[in-house]
């Protein structure tokens, strides 16, 4: 095993969490990480030494996931305009602490995949807005607008104990 593989193995816990934000299901997320590692090992010559392997892997995972969604003919893309329609609910700290993984996944499922990507990239992985923009190949303004709307939508959904769209 060489340094590339060692670094990749070190990233696995983070890649699994990132993939969960895309796939919203633990088994599918691990399938995605597995496919991502295989692709990375096959195409390792495309990775430039000295650049960040984590960002490169996040991009691979995101592209693989979007390919999968498209080839399955699924319409993963939630209509962004629907996000504004949820009623605002009261958010309390007890609501926040009681949220389970499953509930958060149910809420995230109502967001388009690129909103979920940017949420996990910034809020979990601590990527800067600029790094998230590079990951998604969009301007920083687009990252900020998606991120703000995703977090407002999450706030409204999490305040609702049933997470239902009204």
């Amino acid at each position, binding site marked *: 095993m060489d*340094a590339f593989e*060692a670094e990749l193995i070190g990233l696995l816990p983070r890649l699994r969490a990132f993939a969960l934000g895309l796939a919203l299901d633990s088994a599918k997320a691990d399938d995605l990480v*597995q496919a991502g*590692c295989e692709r990375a*090992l096959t195409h390792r010559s495309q990775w430039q030494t000295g650049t960040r392997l984590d960002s490169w892997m996040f991009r691979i995972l995101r592209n693989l996931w979007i390919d999968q969604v498209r080839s399955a003919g699924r319409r993963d893309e939630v209509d962004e305009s629907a996000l504004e329609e949820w009623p605002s609910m009261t958010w309390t700290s007890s609501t926040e602490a009681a949220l389970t993984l499953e509930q958060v996944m149910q809420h995230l499922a109502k967001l388009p995949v690129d909103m979920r990507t940017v949420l996990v990239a910034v809020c979990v992985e601590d990527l800067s807005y600029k790094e998230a923009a590079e990951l998604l190949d969009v301007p920083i303004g687009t990252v900020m607008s998606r991120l703000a709307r995703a977090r407002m939508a999450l706030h409204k959904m*999490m305040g609702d104990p049933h997470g239902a769209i009204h």
Partner: protein
Amino acid sequence: MAQFTDEQLMAFADGEAPGALAQELRDALCGDAALRARLAIFEESRRVLRRVFNAKRAEPVPDRLMAAFGSAVQPAPRAAGRGWRNSHLALAASALAAVALSVGYFAGDRSESTLLPSAHFLTAALEGTASGDPFVEAREAGRQELVPIRTVRLQDGSWCREFRFAEVLARTVNKVHGLACRGSQGGWSMRALLPSSALPRAGADGAYRPASGVDAFSDLGPTESVDAAREATLIANGWR
């Protein structure tokens, strides 16, 4: 009264607001409960997502994900109930010759894991902290601490630092011993993981004592050591 957009409040919550906006917001937040409530929305979503996803990151990596690295893995002796640890140990054994890996990741008990520090945290900690001093950041559910151990200059002129890192969460402790180097844009990023057994012990005079048989920087080519005085100057001058 100034009106702030959701995006401006979010950028402030995320530490991405430009200085003038940040100052304006700090002033406005003091006397404006409604504005504080809007800001809290963004702080809370980050907190919830981190809590949920950090729990995922703390899980042991399943065996099947290691299959992609099959060519490098020796057949692992498997004892009942200890499967993933043993296969990792076998893999670690084959890895040590090529690159030193964190022993904690492979051999630690289930309450330990190796999550690398984020590039943001690395940069915040390594850019301005002298070797031997801890850089601590309180988190929602614990804290992260990084102590730089020593600084060297590579032949290409770039700066690298050996460090130890610990992330203490509610039920897990995550320890990393590693090397990070400063990129041309000023950010610090991981270059290598090192076995925790290779952590140097400081001598009575505070000088660096390499662990026996291990040179943390050996994979990076010839290096030039940087003493405390020069390191202080580098930190003061933004590594120029």
